[in-house]
């Protein structure tokens, strides 16, 4: 136990400098993480106060900024809604840090699954390529994608606020149904597990309509209010959609979207936010802009090892 704690602190210290862990260490932390996650419920119960974080997509220095603004873990209790990887340069460092923090402070940080925590998506949108570039083989990608299958898919704050990556599913209109889903699998392309990671609210339409994304549904105000009423919830916090202001509220302030990757893809110029939920269940959107990137830790130049395979 002492050795394990010491190693985790060392890993966290290293990761906070944006240094990747060795492959063998990744195997160790992902194995330990699976042991920890397997006993967590599909729907995690969380006590306030808690700070809720949306998509971060490998923007590591912006994650450090979150801890500066919202407070360090474990001083602040955190709930991350998924999409840790793909697109950003530092998905490996980001998911490694969050994994180590979860192992070190399991009751002070909760990690949910997003639609990008899957083999199919990460092979296309960057994480697989990043692992190949940083480790030279896909082993680390395999370790993490196996771990992704164990992540919880929803959380409830003080029995009142329902939290999930995407939103609702016509196949699981009660939280009890979500609690009994088999979550230990690759994100399927349809069904309740897929829907709650892929769906989006639509203020212009009622009911459930198949999503333009090709997975999940759009859901309207009517089904959202019915979901809240039937499940005795007050509010939904979800992520999954870029918000130029960092957040957006819909449906008479019954649903919030939080987005935590500022200046997304260095293109969007958007703000980002985290949601601070206090003991009275008041929600404060703490917004921030992109962190200045450290002048150190620049990618290595002019080495054949760094060239993408196509160009060797």
């Amino acid at each position, binding site marked *: 136990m002492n050795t394990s704690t010491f190693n985790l602190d060392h890993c966290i210290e290293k990761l906070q400098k944006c240094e990747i862990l060795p492959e063998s260490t990744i195997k160790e932390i992902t194995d330990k993480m699976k042991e920890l996650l397997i006993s967590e419920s599909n729907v995690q119960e969380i006590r306030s106060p808690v700070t809720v974080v949306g998509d971060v997509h490998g923007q590591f220095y912006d994650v450090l900024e979150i801890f500066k603004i919202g407070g360090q873990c474990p001083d602040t209790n955190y709930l991350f809604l998924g999409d840790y990887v793909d697109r950003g340069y530092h998905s490996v460092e980001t998911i490694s840090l969050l994994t180590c923090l979860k192992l070190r402070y399991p009751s002070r940080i909760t990690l949910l699954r997003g639609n990008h925590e899957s083999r199919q998506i990460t092979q296309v949108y960057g994480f697989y390529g990043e692992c190949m570039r940083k480790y030279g083989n896909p082993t680390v990608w395999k370790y993490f994608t196996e771990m992704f299958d164990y992540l919880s898919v929803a959380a409830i704050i003080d029995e009142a606020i329902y939290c999930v990556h995407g939103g609702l599913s016509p196949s699981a209109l009660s939280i009890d149904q979500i609690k009994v889903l088999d979550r230990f699998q690759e994100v399927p392309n349809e069904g309740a597990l897929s829907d709650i990671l892929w769906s989006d609210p639509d203020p212009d339409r009622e009911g459930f309509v198949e999503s333009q994304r090709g997975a999940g549904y759009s859901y309207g105000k009517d089904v959202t209010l019915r979901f809240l009423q039937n499940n005795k919830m007050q509010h939904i916090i979800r992520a999954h*959609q870029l918000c130029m202001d960092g957040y957006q509220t819909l449906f008479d302030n019954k649903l919030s979207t939080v987005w935590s990757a500022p200046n997304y893809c260095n*293109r969007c110029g958007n703000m980002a936010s985290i949601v601070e939920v206090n003991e009275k269940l008041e929600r*404060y959107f703490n917004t921030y802009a992109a962190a200045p*990137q450290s002048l150190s830790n620049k990618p290595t130049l*002019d080495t054949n090892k760094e060239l993408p395979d196509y160009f060797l």
Partner: protein
Amino acid sequence: MSENNNKIPSFGLKSNVNSTYNHLETVAKLSIDEKLVNEPPKFVDIKTITPLNVENNGIAQKRIISKRDLRSFHTSSTYSELLNFIIQLSLDIQGKSLKSNFTITKNINSIIVLLNQLDQYITDIPPKQIRTRFGNESFVEWFNKVEKETPKLLFNLINDNPLNTPITNEVPIIYNEISTYLQNSWGDKQRIDYGSGHELNFICFLLCLVKIKFIKREEYELLVLIIFNKYLNMMRRLQESYWLEPAGSHGVWGLDDYHFLPFLFGSSQLIEHKYIRPKSIRNDEIVNSSFSDEYMYLGCIRFIGKVKSGGSLLEHSPMLVDISGVKNWSKVNEGMIKMFKSEVLGKLPIMQHMFFASIIQYIDNPDIIETDEEINQRKPIVTHSFSSCGCINRVPSMFAVANTDKILASTSTTTNNNNNNITSGDHCNDNEQQCSETHNHDHNHNHNHNHNHPPPPPQQQRSYFPLD
């Protein structure tokens, strides 16, 4: 083949007897069958061909639905034909500037006139002032206009009529088929996004024109240096005007959020250039020089620098910086072809959007059997765009400057931001404090955006975001 072999030119490449490296030979190996890389596509007669999808008014259809279908496609003559076409286009522009002296043929000029018409529609349909999505919904209006006009425009193009000749009878169905590719070259009107799959549709449109013999082999270089380049500039205008979301962006792990082929074609243009090396893209002087008007690759680097913020090329486009370490442009071009085969033609999220009908046919291979794993993953996830939400009254820095210039009727040139600047810590702190002050006022309340609220004046827009 009725075509006289003597009329088919060898590749545009002029062989250099002194060179120890034969680029043609290397690139030919990347084709399905290197002996066939010089072959023309299979021609069709537009007057006698039997259109498919008559029940759908001849509109080309998506036929690749599963991974098994994609594997089948990779064994087909259509795949070989498409890949060879792209390789031939690349070889025919090797070492050629966009500003070379061209003789523009009549048919090439007709395509220019058609694209100019579509470009005019952008001017006619300005972006909406109030937007409820990341993408501007005027794009839907523009797209619908293009969709409606394209069959007529193509009929007149191919039949050598002036572009706006009224058509008394219904356009033959086959023109709806060719229209499908051009209509879908500009993005997706439902998602208001654009990606390399749409770019591929434009190549398929050009391939149709070749297959019906509207374009000849000696015009291939013009297809890239004039027509594709014009398309690229139009896409940039669409992206800037209507805020198209990147579809399927790989973020820093891709070449670009929107395009692939300008890098493939652009690297071919630069082969054996006297001064410009792959590493030249790291030199702002070169990137901001007129060389970027001559070579697509440099034009892309310049445009990326224009629209990306929050760091240097190294930080937002490390793939491009890494590729700049490749020893010469031939190797870059070779790598781009390999990468295109794998990352565009080899990816189901992109290829499921390819259209097929009678000119570009889907030829199924019954010997390709669906695996158990493929059966379990039968419904693919379509291209994943940002799909943002929210009321947007603010415009990020680059476009804010552009809008400010328009609003103030300024005639001055926008100052080039140095894209190597990193936002200063002080600036970030100021911004953070400002945000903190703003939100302390509403500490116990959530912001409820009033969608009817008019946008703030430009000066306030700019102040929301740190500028370089």
